[in-house]
Every structure is written in structure tokens, then in C-alpha cells.
């Protein structure tokens, strides 16, 4: 509620949403016309999961951690599987690794498509939500649903189920997909690739706020591919480390009086993970058609405007489709759906690029294959500090707006990051405190 004009404290506060545990909380304090404080709570770190993974059998970890995120379970399944495989001295390579890559392409496609078409595009086309956008642009929405469906199908064929894949295990998979089922995916992938290029052209015509920041981007880097399954961790400020060195360079802090956790690159500050980070750090590794499509619409290998992440997600859909088609065409069935993994007391790390950014896992296996310790760092919580900074600057430029409009602007700023909260139109109930 907006206070009357005589009170110069506006508090923008977001309460917890129905069915969500404390996410969606945004508090903005404005004093004498200046933004004093921005406290954003958009994701709760999976401390609960880290705790109850202890004393579970190591083989249960991928399925349990998949429950952390309903929209990117593959990121958790593969991150945890690889960490445990490392601990056990096993590498999943060759066709099984390709199959993981294929599954992950499916997740990128469906996650990006959902966000782009149903959550983000309405902002740019001037609609409060996708439903109203669909009234005037049904074909755009249908196109988005088709692309999402392709991603879902990929996940269903390889993962065994669309929403929560059940086929992923430490060591590989429980079952190999039928070759015919894989080949049947090529045609929808080709159609979705074209649809994504068309959509990129559409997004290139959107009007973007003039907003750029000098971010520190952090992403995986791999010599042979646009990194998704693993590699080293790099940044545009000189970071270049092995996955196991993550804790030595990144801190998570509970700020005073805040329930949210902020992640910092030690000695540097807030950083950004996700499509914008990947794009800026790995443009030349994008698939040929993705690179070509990006350049054709006027993008360059550097993009510092978070609002343009809608274009970057589109580019990544093109990339994921092209990579997926390539894997399927070159597919040669391996002799077994998984490799043998025997547990031993050891610690292993794994990190993959979830649609939203790097998702880092570390597990210590104790006796009898039971988990002794778990640490999981999801992407959205790593972006928290950067998102707050974006909001601070964005709000500062729109202070004269009434709270309702200000809230809408803040939601748009948050939606650039596609955090695990941006789904509903009004996920932020803003309370502005003005003094």
C-alpha cells in the first residue's frame, strides 16, 4: 500500500507467495529521494536438501536433488551424478556423455522457451501477461508452446519423463533410448530451430531500455564445446579455476538483517551467471547457426544489457537444437546404458550450466556408500546480489512512479534473470518505504 505523500518513507515489501516458501520477497527503502536499501529474496538455498542427503545412499542423490528445482531437474541430476562419479574415480564419456548432453539440450530448450514466450515476451510486447498477449499474438504463443514441446519430448525420450526425468543415474542411465525414438526427434528439432531463428528476429525488434552494467560474468569453459556439462570456471575478470577450487574463490554470506544469501567472488564482489555470462564468455563456441543468427540480428559477441537476455536465450535455443540434431545424427548406441560405479570414501565435485547458470555440487561419500556431506550452490542464489544491484539502479531511474508501476518495473528487471520465481505476472508484492 502506498503511504500518503506526507510520509516520505515508501516500503516496498513482498510477502511470501502462496505455495512458495518465502520466495518473492522484495523490500526497497527510499530515503530523501535516494534508494537506500534493496533486499531481495528470490530463492532459498537448498540447505534442507544438503542436510537430509546425509546418510542417504549415494545412488539416491540425483533423484533427491532433482526435487530442488521443478524446472531444471536435469541440472541437479547431472551435477550430482558427475560429482559422485568423480568421487568414485569414474568418468562417463563417449556416447553416454553425448546422451547427457542431449538430455540437457532438452532442458535448455523447454526452460528457455517457457521463459521467453510466456514470461518475458509480454513485457516487451506491452502485455501484462501471456494470456493477453496470446489474444493478439496467438501464433507467437503457439510457436513458443511448440518449441517447449520439442524440449519436453527430448527429455521424455532420454529422461523417461517430461517433468522429472527418472532415467538418470550415477554412471549414466537406467535405459538407453530406442534409436528410432531419437531419430524421430530430428524433425521437430529442425522445426524448432527455424522457429527460434524467427523468434530471434522478432526479439531483435523489441525496444530495450538503455541499461548496461560492467558485470563480472562467471561460466563454465570447455575446450571443445559451448560449456554445459563441465569444464573449468572462468570469468571476464581473470578467473580460471578447476571446479574443486570454487569454495576457495566464492563465498556465500548471510547479510545482517537479511534472510537471503549473497554470493561473492572473493576479492571482487557480486557476479553474474546464466545465458548472458555464457554468451559473453563463450560466444565463439556457440553452434554455427546460433552464431550466424546472433550476428544477423545485430548482436555482437559482447552483450552487457540484461534486458537483451531474451535474445540470448533465443540464441541458446537455436544452439541447443543444432547441437541436439548433431548428436542424434552421429549417435552410435553404446554397449550398456551405464558404467559401473563402486562407492569409496572420497569427495567429488561437479558443475554444469543449468538454464539459469552454473550449478555446483560437492559430495563426500563415507562408509558403505552413504553420503557424509553435501554442498549445492544453485544459479539463482548466485545472481541475487547482481539482481539487487540492477533493481537499485533501475528503481533509482524511476522513483517518481507510483508503487504499482514501480513494482512492474522491478518485476521486469528480475525477469531478465529468469530466476526460479518469475512465473506469475505479479510475483512481487512491492512495499516501498520512503522517508
Amino acid at each position, binding site marked *: 500500500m502506498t503511504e500518503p505523500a506526507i510520509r516520505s518513507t515508501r516500503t516496498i515489501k513482498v510477502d511470501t507467495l502462496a*505455495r512458495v516458501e518465502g520466495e518473492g520477497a522484495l523490500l526497497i527503502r527510499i530515503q530523501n529521494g535516494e534508494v537506500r536499501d534493496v533486499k531481495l529474496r528470490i530463492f532459498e538455498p537448498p540447505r534442507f536438501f544438503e542436510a537430509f542427503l546425509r546418510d542417504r545412499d549415494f545412488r539416491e542423490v540425483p533423484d533427491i536433488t532433482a*526435487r530442488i528445482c*521443478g524446472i531444471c531437474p536435469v541440472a541437479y541430476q547431472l551435477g550430482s551424478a558427475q560429482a559422485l562419479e568423480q568421487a568414485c574415480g569414474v568418468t562417463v564419456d563417449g556416447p553416454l556423455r553425448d546422451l547427457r548432453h542431449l538430455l540437457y539440450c532438452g532442458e535448455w530448450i523447454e526452460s528457455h522457451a517457457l521463459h521467453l514466450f510466456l514470461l518475458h515476451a509480454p513485457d516487451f510486447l506491452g502485455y501484462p501477461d*501471456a*494470456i493477453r498477449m*496470446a489474444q493478439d499474438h496467438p501464433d507467437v504463443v503457439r510457436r513458443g508452446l511448440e518449441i517447449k514441446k520439442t524440449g519436453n519430448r527430448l527429455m521424455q525420450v532420454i529422461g523417461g519423463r517430461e517433468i522429472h526425468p527418472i532415467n538418470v543415474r550415477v554412471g549414466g542411465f537406467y535405459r538407453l533410448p530406442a534409436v528410432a525414438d531419437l531419430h524421430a526427434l530430428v524433425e521437430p528439432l529442425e522445426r524448432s530451430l527455424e522457429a527460434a531463428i524467427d523468434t530471434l528476429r522478432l526479439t531483435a525488434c523489441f525496444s530495450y531500455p538503455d541499461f548496461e552494467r560492467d558485470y563480472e560474468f562467471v561460466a563454465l569453459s570447455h575446450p571443445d564445446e559451448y560449456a554445459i556439462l563441465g569444464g573449468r570456471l572462468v570469468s571476464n575478470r581473470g578467473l580460471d579455476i578447476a571446479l574443486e577450487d570454487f569454495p576457495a574463490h566464492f563465498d556465500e554470506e548471510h547479510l545482517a538483517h537479511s534472510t537471503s544469501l549473497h554470493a561473492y567472488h572473493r576479492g571482487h564482489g557480486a557476479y553474474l551467471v546464466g545465458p548472458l555470462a555464457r554468451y559473453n564468455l563463450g560466444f565463439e563456441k556457440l553452434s554455427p547457426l546460433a552464431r550466424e543468427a546472433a550476428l544477423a540480428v545485430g548482436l555482437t559477441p559482447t552483450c552487457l544489457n540484461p534486458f537483451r537476455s531474451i535474445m540470448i536465450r533465443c540464441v541458446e535455443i537455436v544452439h541447443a537444437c543444432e547441437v541436439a540434431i548433431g548428436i542424434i545424427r552421429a549417435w552410435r548406441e553404446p554397449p550398456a546404458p551405464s558404467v559401473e560405479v563402486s562407492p569409496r570414501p572420497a569427495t567429488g565435485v561437479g558443475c554444469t550450466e543449468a538454464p539459469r547458470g552454473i550449478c555446483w555440487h560437492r559430495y563426500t561419500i563415507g562408509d558403505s556408500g552413504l553420503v557424509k556431506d553435501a554442498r549445492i550452490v544453485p544459479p539463482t542464489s548466485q545472481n541475487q546480489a547482481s539482481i539487487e544491484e540492477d533493481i537499485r539502479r533501475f528503481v533509482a531511474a524511476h522513483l517518481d512512479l507510483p508503487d504499482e508501476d514501480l513494482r512492474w518495473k522491478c518485476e521486469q528487471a528480475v525477469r531478465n534473470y529468469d530466476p526460479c520465481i518469475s*512465473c*506469475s505476472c505479479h510475483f512481487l508484492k512491492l512495499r516501498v518505504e520512503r522517508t
Partner: protein
Amino acid sequence: MNPADPTRGAARRLLVIGVGNPHRGDDAAGLEVARRLQERLAGIGVGGDSETGAGAGAVTTAATVDIATGEGVDLMSRWEGADRVILVDAARSGAPAGTIHRFDARRETVPSSFFRYSTHVFSVAEAIELARVLGTLPHELAVIGIEGAVFDAGGEISEAVESAVRSVVAELAETLDARD
């Protein structure tokens, strides 16, 4: 399943979808309804379903019971091809716990405030509205919302909701039997 079975085509005619999150207390209400209906149908030799969402098709009743997370786009593809759909979900409207809300989605807008999925994606309400705009709503779509009270992680469903679940299961079991 015999492809020549005359009820096979009818298997998709009535689809009951229980929606929810099994790990959040009363949010499991819709899932519980579906699960118990499946058990009942299995008890009389009729196919129910698992989380794969692949309708097993009915033998004596032309109905399928599905379980879904409530993600809107997923729901829209599940009800493709079904003539009559009954969606059951937990609701959060401030009404007393255990209240049973009913909506005829063909004739009215379902309030999105009632049925929040996670903060993640489209909920039941948004899926219905989007399908309406795109012209893909089933011929009949009834939404049953069971008002929840407690949505804590890991909790059981509360007493009032348990009682409403039983009542909805009994009602739907009759509906399914009555379609012979």
C-alpha cells in the same frame, strides 16, 4: 490392451487430473484424490495411472485418472484429446480449510489467486485461460479446488483437507461409475 476394444476410444473421453505437490502438506490434496481414485478403479479392474501420465485407459468406465504437477503447459498437453476433464487441486483463497470450490471453466474464469503452482510457471488458472484464448479448451472442464490450510514442506495433509479429499473421491468415484 486390445486395439479393437470399443471402449478404447472412450478412454480419453473423461480425464481426471489430480494436481499438486506431494511434499507440501495440503498441497497434495489433488494428488491424494487422484491416487485414491486410481486405487478404487484398480480395485474394480480398471486402469489408473502413474506419474508418467500415460493414461492406461479404462475397461468398465471410460475414464483415465492422471497425476500432474500443475505446471500449466504440461496440463494443456495432457488434456489434449479429452472431451471432459475434471481437474482437482489444492486452493488457497482464505476460505475455511476443507472448503470445496467448484468452477466450470467453460463458463467462468478460474481465479488465479486460488491455484498457485510454484512461483515457477503457469498454474492451473493460467493454463485454462491460455487454452481458452488459443481455442484448445476441452469441451467440458470442471475444476475442483480443495481449500488448504497448511503448506509446509514435508507436512501431512491436515484433517479438514483429509475430510474434503474423502468427500471428493466418493463423489468422483460415483461420477466415473455412472459413466458406464
